[in-house]
């Protein structure tokens, strides 16, 4: 396997990451914009995600449906995702069609039309997407917890947006959001696959070199003050099953403590898969919370979510309550386990095991080209590519004392929101 990389920036500010991989006749191309729900406020919550939908409505050069057809015809895939800090668009195509990726992304970086009738047609599609989410207890509970966990920061809103905003956002608000954030200086282009770097540099220049920039964007994001005490939320909803989510304010991905928290999470709830586009991950049956709660028959499932974000976000423990127990009993058992973590340092052996697991997960993440291209751009949304390359090294430096300090710091009850989803039916 011969991999070669080249990272550089165009004069208009577009960051470019290229990686040659010649294992399959495929190229995966990603464009990342530093815009997500982090850049929204009440009135336009959900705008970043809606803009992403509008980017598939066609331009003068590539009318609606044209690209769907061209990409599907060759068996390629293309899609997009919007999250807290970013919006990304990708195509994975036969290598001889990489030019199409460059051309279409350069085109829709500036030429999308946002026609009013299409904006309105998409309004009902997105409301339908939100209603699909609202069918899920986890979404309802998560939304309530985010709102309680932040007073100032836009992380208090779900990426899909508040329903009242989805009903009222105007075409001009969406178009303004697009014009502000879809700028080469606010984007990164990442390609991995079967190409020659020298030729790809020329193609990138030809497609993106002339796109004008307004210069780097410095968004004005409110900073959040500490929670200052435990908060609680309760959501009543349909069903027979109760859920508990306990969310702690967590360090941002660029904070060195993030790696210590990654080790802590691995010991508490099992290692998280780094892999978005392939088989990967392991189970969490030997983790501390699984043993205490699921084997202890207090909950029927248990997993942790730690997310790499630009600003401090949340580390969440998610539990499905056993039908013969209560959410309060789940919370008490979790607290008993967390106390052990805060009372005494973990062993070096436990940390070594977590690192070995992380290395395996890393190997899975190199199994396909789409996933390698994903990592090539993703980490720039909250840190830089070194974050990815040195990930295992950073984990290896974590000491038992670090884990103890971070456990006491992050897992402090004054730093959390406890959410209960209480079902309207009961299992009797």
């Amino acid at each position, binding site marked *: *396997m011969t991999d070669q990389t080249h990272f550089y920036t165009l004069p208009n500010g577009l960051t470019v990451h290229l990686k040659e991989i010649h*294992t*399959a*006749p*495929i190229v995966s191309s990603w464009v990342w914009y530093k815009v997500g729900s982090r850049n929204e406020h009440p009135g336009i919550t959900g705008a970043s995600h809606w803009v992403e939908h509008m980017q598939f409505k066609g331009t003068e050069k590539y009318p*609606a*449906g044209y690209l*769907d*057809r061209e*990409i*599907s*015809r*060759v*068996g*390629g895939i293309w899609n997009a995702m919007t999250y807290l800090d970013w919006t990304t668009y990708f195509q*994975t195509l*036969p290598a001889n069609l990489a030019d199409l990726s460059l051309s279409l992304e350069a085109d829709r970086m500036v030429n999308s039309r946002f026609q009013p009738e299409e904006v*309105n*047609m*998409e*309004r009902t*599609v*997105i409301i*339908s997407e939100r*209603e*699909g989410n*609202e*069918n899920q*207890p986890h979404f309802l509970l998560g939304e309530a917890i985010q709102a309680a966990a932040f007073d100032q920061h836009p992380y208090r809103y779900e990426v899909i947006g508040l329903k009242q905003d989805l009903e009222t956002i105007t075409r001009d608000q969406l178009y303004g959001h697009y014009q502000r954030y879809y700028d080469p200086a606010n984007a990164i282009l990442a390609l991995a696959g079967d190409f020659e770097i020298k030729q790809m540099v020329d193609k990138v220049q030809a497609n993106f070199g002339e796109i004008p920039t307004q210069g780097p964007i410095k968004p004005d994001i409110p900073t959040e003050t500490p929670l200052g005490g435990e908060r609680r939320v309760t959501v009543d909803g*349909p*069903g*027979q*099953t109760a859920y508990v989510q306990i969310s702690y304010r967590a360090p941002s991905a660029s904070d060195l403590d993030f790696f210590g928290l990654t080790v802590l999470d691995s010991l508490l709830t099992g*290692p998280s898969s780094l892999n978005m586009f*392939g*088989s990967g991950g*392991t*189970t*969490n*049956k030997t983790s501390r919370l699984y*043993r205490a709660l*699921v*084997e202890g*028959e207090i909950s*029927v*499932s248990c997993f942790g979510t730690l997310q790499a974000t630009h600003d401090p976000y949340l580390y969440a423990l998610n539990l*499905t309550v*056993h*039908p013969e127990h209560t959410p309060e009993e789940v919370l008490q058992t979790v607290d008993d386990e967390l106390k052990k973590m805060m009372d005494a340092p973990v062993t070096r052996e436990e940390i070594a095991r977590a690192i070995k*697991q*992380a*290395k*395996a*997960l890393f*190997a*899975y993440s190199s*199994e*396909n*080209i789409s996933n390698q291209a994903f990592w090539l751009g993703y980490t720039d949304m909250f840190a830089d590519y070194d974050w990815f390359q040195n990930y295992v090294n950073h984990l290896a430096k974590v000491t038992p004392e670090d884990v103890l300090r971070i456990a006491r710091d992050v897992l402090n009850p004054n730093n959390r929101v406890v959410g209960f989803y209480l079902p*309207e039916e009961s299992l009797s």
Partner: protein
Amino acid sequence: MPGPDDIARETLPNGITILARANFNSPTLSIRGYLPSGSIFDPDEKLGLSYLTANSLMSGTTHYDFQSLYNEIESVGAKIGFSSGTLTSAFSAHSLSEDLNLIMGLIAECLRRPTFPDRDFNRLKMQMLTGLAIRSQDTAAMASMLFDQAVFAGHPYERPDDGYVETVQAIEREDLVNFYQRTFGPKGLTIAIVGAVEAQTAVDAVKAALGDWDNPGQEPLPDFPPLAPVAKPIRKDLTITGKYQADVVMGCQAPERLSPDYFPLRIGNNILGEFGMMGRLGKSVREDSGLAYYVYSNLSSSLGPGAWEMIAGVNARNVEQAVDLMVAEAQRFVSEPVSAEELDDSKSLFLGRLPLMLESNGGVAISLLNMERFDLGLDYFIQYPEKIKAVTAEKIFETSRKYLDPDKLIVAVAGP
């Protein structure tokens, strides 16, 4: 492209078939397999038995309890899982390639020496019952279940593999032991290993772990009855209060995977509800009407009868409009052949997508198992372009008319 030149295939004297292919692009491997067990053996009053048995194989074995087994697996960042369908019980694993023998040994341990410990049995049964409580609130799962009950009426496929609350409650630990003894054995077990090990090394690892497995009491799969055709349209509605969105599953019966009708319908289905932004259904229901975030069609064909489904998630007040639009697309599909352009687009997709499908070890392993299960031959991917090219618009038209009758659709809706 995987083919006879680089796929190793060997059948052992005890009935196990091994398929292996090397891929040294990353230091990982994927192991997948199945054997002829499944919910077809479940008595009606204990439906869910096969599902619970498969899920209990990792609870404990002669040499490991639950924690020590998972400690072996999780310590090396690997994953092993067992599951059950109607006609098969299956397993799936991935690991670093250096751990081939460890993982193969643990799969064999679970397959050959499960002990079904009492305490773990009760815990898993309660987890399964909670899963059913969650299923009863899932509009998509419930619409799909109602659809299957109607489209496969009188056939084992009409029953959900995970059973119902009362049938799972009726299952005892002894039932698992008996079910395991009757249906688990080497006969018909097929296993595929793909990754950074030489094919022969993989074959040898399976031989070492499972070559001497024997179960003289292993029963063959029972014959399943023929499926009666749908005589009249069926509509099923289920109210799940407090939900925001309804799910619709509608459609008809479809042929088995080996039928000559399969390829015309597979390409026809792509045109109806897959190609680009979910095909003709996506254009009508999402793009032109703004009614749904997801709407698509799906052809499921395996052994025995299949189903051809149109699926959408819509606001409850838009259900009838969405159903009407999908019926209209079904009518159009059997009124006039697809256009030359649509046919050419879809055929091009089926030819073009192989490199992506076969990029990951797991993707290749699934393909190897399908080659064996459906008797497609090791040269399947070499013959594949000819099969695709042979499909014509007329053939899709004739075949669709054979199965899809817009006046006899089954429509299942679950929502508020």
